[in-house]
Structures are given as structure tokens and as C-alpha cells.
């Protein structure tokens, strides 16, 4: 009969079914007569059971697409490599493949300020999503005052929420090197939407990619699977980042546009 020390040395293998049948039977015999080792095994089991409930965070559609494209590029590359003439071009392609998706994601070499703002806003929204559950209920007035003190941006009262629009948080932030106020709200008890308010003075309103929503024509983009709505109103430009569907996005846009 193995002693406790020996059993604990191989308990991990036993729990995972990695022991030979003979050894497993010996462990079982020991466990049957040893409450301390049984308890230890139960504790490890319980912790493993809780860890198994940790959620999977899906990769964004954009990331998936970029990887698929890189793989397709590689497959083509391998075929071309069979001809010696293709080797130089292939070497250049390796560099391009390694760099281009990265640039696409991070850099905004075009320098378009609205596009930069949107890409940075989506990144910040995702970061907020990851952290937001950490925060308990906050008082909007106090949160707005703190944001104002740090950014000089006064968030309109509409961001304090309403019947079907629950206030989650407001915080100062920096997107695309601009001071911004972020207001986080949950619409119709569904997913979380982040609004960014930034001083509008040097931000344009693009002519393209605008959609008619009743009498308004905001700028619309989809980045990493998030819908982004951008518009200017008064002294501020607003960016709304959400994973609501198209019709809910439009309803929420209208509601906020009218309340501001």
C-alpha cells in the first residue's frame, strides 16, 4: 500500500487518467482509507471544475480574416518557390506578409483624423469591456465631475442614462492622442456601448460613408466587428462604439442624438 507522500506525488496523473491501471488501483485503495488525501483530491477537482467555467473570448472577425489571408499568401508563396525565378519576389512577400497586417491594424498612415479616432476608440472600447465588470455602481454626477476635472469635457446629462439605458461608468481617456470623455451605457439590458466625446474643433465631418438616419447623416464604420457611429454636435464630436445590431444601433443613435 503506497503512503500519502507517494500518492500525492502521482495524484495529478491519477486525476487526469494518466496512470497505468495497476498504479491507479493502488491510488484508489489508498484514497478509500485516507480522508486527508481524499480531501486534497476533492479540492483540486473543485478548483479545476471552477477553472473549466472560465469563458472563451472569441478572436475578432478582423483578426481571423488577417490570419486567413496570411495563410493564403503563404500557400501561394510555397507554390511560387518551386520556380527559382520566384524566389526574390517570394522573399519580398515574406517581409510584406509579416509587416502589412500589423501596419493595417495599428498604424493609420493615411493620417485621417476621424479614421484614427475610430480605430483608437474601438481599441479603448474593448479595453473598457474587459475592465468594466470590476467597477461597482457609480454615481453619474460624480463620475462626470471627475471626467470634467481631468479633461475639461463636460459630458451632457443624457449620458447619465434613462429607463432602458443604464449608466455603467464614465471616465477620462486618451484616444488617438486626444483627450476624451468616455461614457459607458448598457442599452435595453443588452451589450455595453461606449460613447467618446472629444473637442470637435479640428475634427472634420467626412463626406463619404455617411448614412441617413431620419434627418441625421452620421459617419458609419465597422471595425473589428464593432459598429462605430461618428457625428458632430455643438462643440463636441461623438464616437459611439457598440456591438448592437444594425437596427438597435440606429435606435440608440437617434435617442442619444436627440437628447444631447
Amino acid at each position, binding site marked *: 500500500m503506497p503512503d500519502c507522500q507517494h500518492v500525492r506525488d502521482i495524484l495529478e496523473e491519477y486525476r487526469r487518467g494518466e496512470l497505468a491501471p495497476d498504479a491507479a488501483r493502488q491510488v484508489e485503495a489508498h484514497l478509500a482509507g485516507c480522508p486527508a488525501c481524499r480531501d486534497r483530491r476533492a479540492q483540486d477537482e473543485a478548483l479545476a*471544475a471552477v477553472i473549466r467555467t472560465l469563458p472563451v473570448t472569441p478572436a475578432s472577425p478582423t483578426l481571423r480574416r*488577417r*490570419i486567413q489571408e496570411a495563410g493564403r499568401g503563404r500557400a501561394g508563396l510555397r507554390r511560387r518557390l518551386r520556380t527559382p525565378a520566384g524566389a526574390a519576389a517570394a522573399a519580398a512577400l515574406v517581409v510584406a506578409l509579416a509587416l502589412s497586417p500589423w501596419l493595417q491594424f495599428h498604424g493609420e498612415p493615411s493620417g485621417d483624423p476621424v479614421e484614427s479616432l475610430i480605430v483608437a476608440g474601438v481599441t479603448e472600447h*474593448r479595453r473598457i469591456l474587459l475592465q468594466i465588470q470590476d467597477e461597482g455602481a457609480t454615481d453619474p454626477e460624480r463620475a462626470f465631475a471627475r471626467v470634467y476635472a481631468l479633461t475639461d469635457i463636460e459630458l451632457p446629462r443624457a449620458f447619465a442614462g434613462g429607463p432602458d439605458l443604464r449608466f455603467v461608468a464614465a471616465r477620462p481617456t486618451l484616444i488617438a492622442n486626444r483627450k476624451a470623455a468616455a461614457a459607458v451605457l448598457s442599452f435595453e439590458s443588452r451589450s455595453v456601448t461606449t460613447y467618446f466625446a472629444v473637442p470637435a474643433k479640428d475634427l472634420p465631418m467626412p463626406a463619404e460613408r455617411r448614412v441617413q438616419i431620419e434627418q441625421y447623416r452620421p459617419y458609419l464604420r465597422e471595425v473589428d466587428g464593432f459598429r462605430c457611429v461618428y457625428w458632430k454636435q455643438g462643440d463636441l464630436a461623438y464616437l459611439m462604439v457598440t456591438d448592437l445590431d444594425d437596427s438597435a444601433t440606429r435606435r440608440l443613435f437617434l435617442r442619444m442624438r436627440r437628447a444631447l
Partner: protein
Amino acid sequence: MAEPFADLQREALLHLDALYSFALRLTKRPPDADDLVQETYLRAFRFAHRFEPGTHLRAWLFQILRNTFLTFYRRDAHQPVLFDQEGEGAEDAADPDAPVAAVATALDLERALGELPEEFRTALLLADLEGFALAEIAQIMDVPVGTVKSRLFRARRLLRRRLADYRAG
């Protein structure tokens, strides 16, 4: 014969969400997790000829991801690992009044995991969440099986203690 590279690529993509979740728990920042996962796949495609068919593709991908993380992303690479002070002999002192059933929320668990040293967190996630065999974890982390087991043991002890601390407020 079918295109082996296309098969590998297709199969590799089946693990994307698991790899991304793991990357997020390593880097704790979505933009870094995106970069890390993308770099992982670029490397896997680049070194596809080194992959031995019939071996575990999923383990191979996790191994590339973790090596890439250690090379490029680990910010605390120069900090010593914060081993808990007690030696191995202290195991019987594990608090029996702190059952995991008392885990308050998944959020506490994420937080407690995030506070574990990377070696412990990785071992625990690979073992209990991803369900890898001990030998596979040893391969992914490039350490002997005995080291994996001792990391698992310490990881669980630290995690239980943290969760009990949260519970106590």
C-alpha cells in the same frame, strides 16, 4: 494528394478562439493579444514544414504562442518569480476551511489568476482549462513533467489563498 499546408491551416484556425483567450490572459491587453495571436499564426505557417503530422497541432500552437509571448511581450521578464514563501512541506497546512465552492464570481477567479506569476498561471490554464496532458504541458513550457506538477501545486495553493482573501474582503 490534398494540400497538406491547406489542411494544417484549416485545422490551425479551429484553435483560434482558444489561443486568443489564452493570449488575453497572458498579455491582459486586447491589442497585445491580437498581435501575439497573429504572430503565432505567422510563425506556425512559416515553420509548417517542422510540424510532424500526427502530433498534437493544438499543443504545438500553444507552444509557439507562449514562446512568442516570452520573447516579445512579457513585460516583467526581468522580475523574479514571486514564489510563495512556504516550502513544499507546508502542503498539509492548506486551509481546509477555504473550499473553492466559496468562489464568489468568475471575475474574482480571473483577477486571482491574473495575479499569479506567469509560469503558474500558464501551467494551470493549460492543465485545467485546456485539458492538456502533463507531458504536453511539459513540452509547451519546455520544462520537465516534475516542474509542471510543482507549478500546478503552487498555483493552486496561491489561487486558493487569493480567493479566500477576496472573500474575507
